[in-house]
């Protein structure tokens, strides 16, 4: 049920399967939780976000949000701190890929739903702060109709 992203559904499914279902250095539950956290709910994915998976440690959760919302803000120190906290390179690699994939799928689904003229779903990560690409509701001075 994860692969409903248009004509590339089979590719999406294969990627999701390899990232979420293969054995790795993190549990499948953690990767699912990271992906769900990074993936804004949409009419397509809304039923999937409640995976009931394991909790994400607060420092890792903050990193996941950063990758999902503004990856360019990630710093060397972010990764160094996570490593000092005991996360191996492979753990961080898997968490980063899961977060990036979740964020990408969320945007893809929101874009496709916008093309279909559906209302934009609320963004569960918006509490972290507005996405830099989110237009301001008030618009910019002088450009409103």
């Amino acid at each position, binding site marked *: 049920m994860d692969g409903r992203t248009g004509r*590339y559904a089979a*590719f999406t499914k*294969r*990627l999701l399967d*390899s990232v979420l279902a*293969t054995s790795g250095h993190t549990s499948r539950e953690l990767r699912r939780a990271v992906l769900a956290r990074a993936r804004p709910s949409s009419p397509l994915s809304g039923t999937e976000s409640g995976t009931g998976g394991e909790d994400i440690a607060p420092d890792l959760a903050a990193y996941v949000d950063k990758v999902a919302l503004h*990856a*360019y803000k990630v710093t*060397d120190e972010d990764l160094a701190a996570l490593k000092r906290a005991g996360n191996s*390179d492979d753990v961080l690699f898997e968490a980063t890929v899961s977060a990036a994939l979740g964020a990408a799928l969320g945007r893809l689904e929101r874009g496709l739903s916008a093309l279909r003229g559906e209302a934009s779903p609320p963004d569960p990560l918006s509490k972290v702060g507005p996405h830099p690409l989110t237009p301001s509701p008030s618009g910019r001075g002088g450009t409103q109709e």
Partner: protein
Amino acid sequence: MRLHAVEHGHRLPQRLKLMLIRLVSRRRVPDVVKTLFYRPEFFGGPMCDWTQAVMRGPSPWSVGERELFAAFTSRLNQCLF
């Protein structure tokens, strides 16, 4: 590259490919390639297949148009394309 494993931890087949790319291009291999070559069964393999289909497969959009979309999106994400 912030993760040492993704910079230097490739297995032999991928390490050989990276060496070949370095030799032919005579420049540093881009980090995105190193990332795709790291544990490709986990991420890089299916990701490359997907990218190939989207960027080069049958589409109403030309390859150039698709590359432009990707470059524009990367720009908005403040990510070097």
